[in-house]
Structure formats: C-alpha cells, structure tokens
C-alpha cells in the first residue's frame, strides 16, 4: 500500500511539473484573438474562428461567453479584442465601432395542438398584459393561457416590447425564460403556452418535427426567408464591436466574418447573413 502511495505521488509530481513546463510561453509567434460576449453569437463565432484558424496557421481565436453587456464592457476595457453583442447598440455605446454580422428574426410560437392559427397585434398585447386569459376568447380551446416572456434586459424582450408598444411592467407573464431553447421546450411541454423566440431556431425545430408552429406577424409569415428579404418586421442585429477602429489581425477577422465565405456557417446557426 505504501509503495502504491509513493508511486502515485511521483506520478502526480511529474504531471504537475510537466503541466507547469507547458505553461511557459513556448511559441511567441502565436497570435491570439479573444472574443467575449453574447452566448447567442458564441457558437457562430467559434465556428468562424475555426475556419479563420484553418486559413491562418499562426492564429488562435478564443471565444468566451458572458452576455452582451460583457461583450461591450470587455471591448471597452480592452479585456477582449472583439465584443459580441446580440442587439442594436444603445446611445451610450455608439462610440464603439460596430459591425453587423447577421440578423435574427423573432417569431411568436404556439404548440401545434393549439387550434389558433393567427393572432393580430391587439390580441397579442391583450394576452401579454393579462387582459385575455383564456384561449377561447381568441377562438381556441377553453384553457388558461400560459404567456411566456423573456427575462429583463434581453434584446429579444426589448424588441418585442418596442414593437407592441409595451413596458415590461405592463406584462403579466405566467412563465419567464432565459434562452430560446428554454422557450421552445416550455411550449413543447405545455399545449396552452405562447412564447416568442428566434425565428431560425423555431424554424429548425419545427422542421425537425417538433410540435410547434410559428405565427405570422401582421399577415407576414414568420420565416428565415422573410427576414432575409426584409419583409418580416421583427428582427435583431447580431453585432461585433471593437475598442477602436480595427487594425491588423482584428481587421482581418472582421472582414472575414463579414465576407460571403462564412455565409454557410451563419445559416447553419439559423441566422440570416446581414445584407450588404
């Protein structure tokens, strides 16, 4: 037993020494690009980063999450080279150079088992402010409505409120969610739920056979195609921000991210490449 213990200790010490040696900066020629911010953009940024690395062998692109406000503050404090922000910039943020990568539409979704096929603006406002509480008042089953709202501060919420002319204090939801996937899963599990999520994600899930349906907004069908041709009214921009006008490696990356070379990656995440 004692011998085993000694062996284990030796292995651990060797491992630790090896680990520490590895931590020495061994290849000073490797350039690192750090992106932080929105977790919505993160998977896309990571894929773009991988393709960029394949084209530039001495570059590493590290993507971290932390939210859009993290993206702004890290870019400003130069803790990151590029910030990922999944919304339009606020007035006090406009001093940072921003580059729109893609568009993400927002659709209202219902469970497929819900017979209601469309809702107009007034009905949606009434549902979300708690004035209509039963589906039968809008032509559906006799069942209580479960209105699903997004958490405060989220850009999807801001856009939704802005479009319908509401304040968050007006909204009386039954459930509050964080990510799109949570919204979709909530509607999947509750036939009387109504929620609003990213169009791309919803379209994908519906295409995979998930029992949800996307409602048209003001008569325009909610589809990625309609976001692409700008006919769909509700969409948010996915932005990259930099501390100052981009130069060198950062400039190369931004140009790459804005080029048609990554359109397939953007579409693989169910966003729409920003029109140029």
């Amino acid at each position, binding site marked *: 037993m004692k011998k085993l213990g000694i062996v284990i200790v030796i292995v651990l010490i060797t491992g630790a020494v090896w680990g520490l040696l590895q931590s020495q900066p061994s290849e000073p020629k490797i350039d690192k690009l750090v992106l932080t911010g929105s977790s919505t953009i993160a998977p896309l940024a990571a894929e773009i980063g991988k393709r960029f690395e394949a084209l530039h062998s001495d570059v590493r692109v590290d993507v971290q999450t932390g939210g859009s406000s993290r993206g702004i503050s890290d870019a400003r404090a130069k803790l990151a080279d590029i910030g990922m922000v999944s919304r339009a910039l606020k007035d006090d943020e406009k001093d940072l150079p921003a580059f729109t990568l893609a568009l993400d539409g927002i659709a209202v979704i219902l469970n497929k088992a819900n017979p209601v096929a469309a809702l107009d603006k007034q009905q949606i406002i009434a549902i979300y402010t708690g004035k209509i509480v039963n589906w039968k008042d809008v032509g559906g089953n006799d069942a209580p409505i479960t209105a699903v709202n997004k958490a405060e501060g989220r850009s999807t919420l801001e856009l939704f409120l802005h479009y319908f002319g509401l304040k968050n204090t007006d909204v009386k939801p039954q*459930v509050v969610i964080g990510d799109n996937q949570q919204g979709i899963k*909530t509607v999947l599990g509750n036939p009387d739920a109504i929620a609003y999520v990213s169009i791309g994600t919803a379209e994908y899930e519906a295409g995979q056979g998930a029992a949800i349906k996307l409602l048209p907004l003001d008569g325009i069908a909610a589809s990625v195609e309609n976001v692409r041709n700008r006919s769909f009214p509700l969409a948010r921009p996915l932005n990259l921000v930099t501390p100052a006008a981009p130069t060198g490696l950062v400039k190369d990356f931004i140009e790459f991210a804005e080029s048609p070379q990554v359109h397939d990656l953007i579409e693989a995440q169910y966003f729409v490449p920003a029109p140029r």
Partner: protein
Amino acid sequence: MSLPRADRRLAALLRICALPAVAIVLLILLFLARESQPVLQHVALNRFISDASWHPLQGLYRLTPMLAATLYATLGALLLAAPLGIASALFSRYYAPPLLAAGYRRMIELLAGIPSVVYGFWGLTTLAPLIGRLHPPGVSLLSGMLVLALMILPTVALTVDAALAAVPVAYLRSAAALGLSRWSLIGGVALPAARPSIAAGILLAAGRAIGETMAVLMVTGNVVQLPQSLFDPVRTLTANIALEMAYATGDHRAALFVSGLALMVMVLVLVATAELFNQERRHV
C-alpha cells in the same frame, strides 16, 4: 495544555492551511460588496424590501418574493431529501444484501455527479409537463422542490452512509448481544451515534439547495411573485442572478450583486439556527 514541539509546529502549519477557507469567504463577501456599491450609493437598503416590484430597468428593486421563493424551495427540498437520504443510507448499510447495497451506493454516487443542467433539462421536458397536466403551467415551486430534492439527496445519503460506516462496530455488537431488534439497534444506537454527522450532511445539502442555479432556472417558471400555492411559478435569487446578469449593466448589475449578498445573509441565518440544535460531542 502544552504540546511537544513537533506538535506545536504541526498545529501552526495546520492553522496556515486552514486560512484559505476563511480567506475565500471574506474575499467573496468583499467582492459582492464592491460590486454592489454603485446601486447602494443612491438606493436605500429598505427599498429592496419596500419597492413595488422587481423591475430594475425602471428602478424597482423588490427582493422579498425571491427571498421567499429560495426559502420555500430549499425547505421543501430538504423535507423530501432528508428522510429519503437517511433511508437510502440505512438501506445500503443495514438492510440490503451486500451486492445490492454496493450497486445502490454506486447509483447514488452517480446521481451526485449529474450536472445541474441535465436535471433542469429533464425537469423542463419531462417533469414540468406532467405537473402541468395537473395544474398549469407546470413549471412551478413544486417542480423546483422535486428537482432540488433529487439533486441534494445524494449529499445526504452519502454523508449519512459514511457516518454510519464510522459507527464503531463494538456499539453494534453490544447491541446485538443484548438482543435488540434491528430497528432498536438502528434507531437507538447507530443513528444517535451518527447524529452530528447527519446534521452536517443535511447542512451541506441545504447549502447546495440554496446555491443551486441552473436547475431551478429551468423548472421554476421564473415569475417574480410570492407563491400562493405549490403550483405557482416562482423565481429564486440564484435563478434571478443567472437570468439577468448576462445582459445587466450599471445599477441593474449592482442590484443583482445585492441579491447575492442577501443570499449570503440568508445562509448565515439558516446555519446559525441549525447550529442551535446541534450539540457537538466532547472529546479529548
């Protein structure tokens, strides 16, 4: 009592090693205090109780419903997990045949290692819809309690199991020799001997329940309100921080850190109350 020199050196070394634990707590408290500063400078503490609601973007910072939700969820989870956990430990120590006991213990160890995300995901897609059929919307205080109970059960079970294993065999042999029935042996000898450890295990589980973030975020519905029934959606303080931190700036962000401090105070109060009921064994 004076110790030989080697022991005094050892004691000093041990004290140094114990410092990080205290240091970390202080650092965390300082960190929370520092990040809360921006909002505390112009928002009085009582507003965190007396404001009309929690709508930080409109300057409203009421924390009470979320404090209540955290408390209810934790207590509910403990009420479920403590007896089940203790029973699980008893099962694997005294009631089950050795092979079954080993398998059962392995299963509990695995339950302890399943990520909170998985519990939340399962709760959202499987448990909540079931509860929703009983009473919409499904995501509620009840589903939060159930999922939390499942998550903290391994902590109770494993610590009690270890405690029971440490009960000196002599105690049990004497009890058996005296002709005590199995339950008298367990309830009258083993459990009381292991009581301080059981209390420690429950306290650890309570800590885990209070601090759980991901799973409750997914299954409690996240509506800021005082629950009128078990089926009402609620938002715990931890879920609140996780939900809004990513997009919060300035005062909103600082207010979230204030809720973090409120949590720490809650933990302190809970722990102090628990310690009142716990008597330490004296030994040399």
